[in-house]
């Protein structure tokens, strides 16, 4: 499976990039997060994050599809 991962705020600082293409054997967004945690040292854990797939918030357990754009959303601070 190939997905596009987007990073923002503290996760972008930790990943050193705003986006990367990731290939691997993961079925859900939760699987993908575990996969990414083996590649980067993130300052936030899954309990601090929301997930979005293709510009929509979804549960961590959501199955991913080929080519999806996935983002793990740190606590927001707009306004």
């Amino acid at each position, binding site marked *: 499976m190939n997905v596009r991962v987007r990073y923002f705020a503290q996760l972008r600082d930790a990943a050193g990039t705003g986006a990367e293409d990731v290939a691997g054997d993961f079925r859900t967004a939760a699987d993908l997060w575990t996969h990414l945690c083996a590649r980067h040292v993130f300052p936030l854990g899954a309990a601090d994050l*929301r997930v979005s797939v293709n510009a929509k918030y979804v549960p961590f357990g959501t199955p991913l599809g080929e080519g999806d754009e996935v983002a793990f959303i740190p606590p927001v601070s707009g*306004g």
Partner: protein
Amino acid sequence: MFRLQTDPLPAPADLLPRADLACGGVVIFEGRVRDYNDGRAVTALEYEAYEALALAEGERILAEAAARFAPVRVAAAHRHGLLGLGEAAVVVIAASAHRQEAFAACRWVIDAIKERLPVWKREHYADGTRAWVACGCHHHGTEAP
């Protein structure tokens, strides 16, 4: 209609059609860059946004408000990029024949924006350092709200 832009925000009244404004009560919220936060002098504020999600989620928030507080017209805009002190970072406008609904809808939309809109604020301090701002509405768990 929800807008996300790096340019200075429009006057809130320009976010709604003139006909919607002529409906009795209009409530506007503007969030502006403060010069102090947690006792530290702030010189500027940098907002990062996930544009695709912010635009979609902004529209969802407005649609939910319009349904929840009907009949009310709502619109909002959020700015991103680098903002100076006193500049508006977010504006919300709600118009209704009854001011109670306009107040309730405006309040609900700004609360939802602060809880759900994928925008992150980094403060620049007078001493040259900068830091991401911890939000006041920490969320947990795996479900969308």
